[in-house]
């Protein structure tokens, strides 16, 4: 069955992130001046206004900051997934990433639960970073 969910709109700001995902790496901009790790990508540091960046590769570990369980498909592409879980994961490096929690019953998910990245290869261009309960716990 063809993939019928929305795809990310790749632009000059977020291209390095999505290219990283294809290689199964979570890449975030880190400010060269103040070390702030930022998300979403942008040309300027929201903390110190510097334009200078390095790309940091996240270890893909974090905790569930919050989550929501969808019982309604607002887009037909998600109808077969109900109930599915969206979450904000707070990565150990700092950024809050909106994503899905997979490989876990919705009623087993808790805030602050440790999670790790798992990759969903969608097509030649797009791989989605999703998260599952941390295997080290």
């Amino acid at each position, binding site marked *: 069955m063809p993939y019928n*969910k*929305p*795809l*990310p*709109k790749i632009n000059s700001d*977020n291209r390095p992130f999505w290219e990283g995902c294809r290689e199964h790496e979570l890449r975030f901009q880190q400010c060269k001046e103040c070390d702030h790790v930022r*998300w979403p990508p942008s040309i300027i540091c929201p903390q110190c206004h510097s334009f200078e960046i390095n790309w940091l590769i996240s270890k893909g570990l974090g905790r569930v*900051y*919050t*989550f*929501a*369980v*969808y*019982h*309604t498909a*607002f*887009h037909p*592409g*998600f109808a077969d*997934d109900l*109930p*599915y879980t*969206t*979450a*904000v994961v707070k990565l150990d490096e700092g950024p*809050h*990433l*909106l*994503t*899905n929690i997979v490989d876990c019953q*919705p009623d087993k998910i*808790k*805030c*602050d639960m440790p999670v790790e990245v798992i990759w969903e290869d969608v097509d030649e261009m797009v791989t*989605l970073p*999703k998260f599952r309960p941390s295997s080290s716990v």
Partner: protein
Amino acid sequence: MQMLMTFSGDDAVFGHFGATGGYALAARRAMYEFGTGPETWKKIAMGQRKWANLNPDAMMYDKPMTAADYDNANWVVEPLRLPDNCLITDGGRAIIITSLERARDLKQSPAVIMGIGHHNPSTVIAQSEWMAGPTGAKKAGEIAFSMAGITPADVDACEIYDCFTYTVEITLQDYGFFKPGEGRDWFNGGTIEPGGRMPVNTSGGQLSEAYFMGLTPIAEGAMQIMGRCGKRQLGPETQTRSPEIILCSDNGGILQSHSSILLRRL
């Protein structure tokens, strides 16, 4: 669908959509941080419905809500059930603002603006570090109360922007009516209902009257001050205090912007 996609941006890739999805994230974090949840929100949904049942203009006028109705309602985006969500309404509502000098000559005795405050934390919900408050309501409320020279103890009733039940709780909490998590007790015993000590959303609000954005609360606040609310009129009609001062709120995005306005009798 176009609007939903624009609103959600790349978050739609993960199936994150619309206001319900965003407020569900905020409400879940609040459950974790200060122990709120559906037991608190049920009292808000049922309390407002009782006001709607006194309001012939309300979409839910002839539809009482029992605790079982709430408990058995479908999840939309958990932890929010259908009755935690506001209505969808075609219609309109307006208020007219003029100088006090002109208003004194009008046939209807006006509601007078005592204080106004705005605060816009503006952070997109997925990036927010304060999903469980304080929201913009804290600072906006402080500014409005300071301008009016009063405190929350002087307020007779509240008309709170209620896109979701949780919005009512976090707004009243940030205004200082109760401490984080104490809403569970504060809403007990019909506090916000007809006959209660702090009536809230006396038209039924956006949950049970009609969704006219910020106009639902402020128009009701003005109408109550003016004494034009029939069977739901605050005062002897509903065994509540006759309103001298009413606090109204508005809120935008997913807890990203907030306005407070205090109205008083002339």
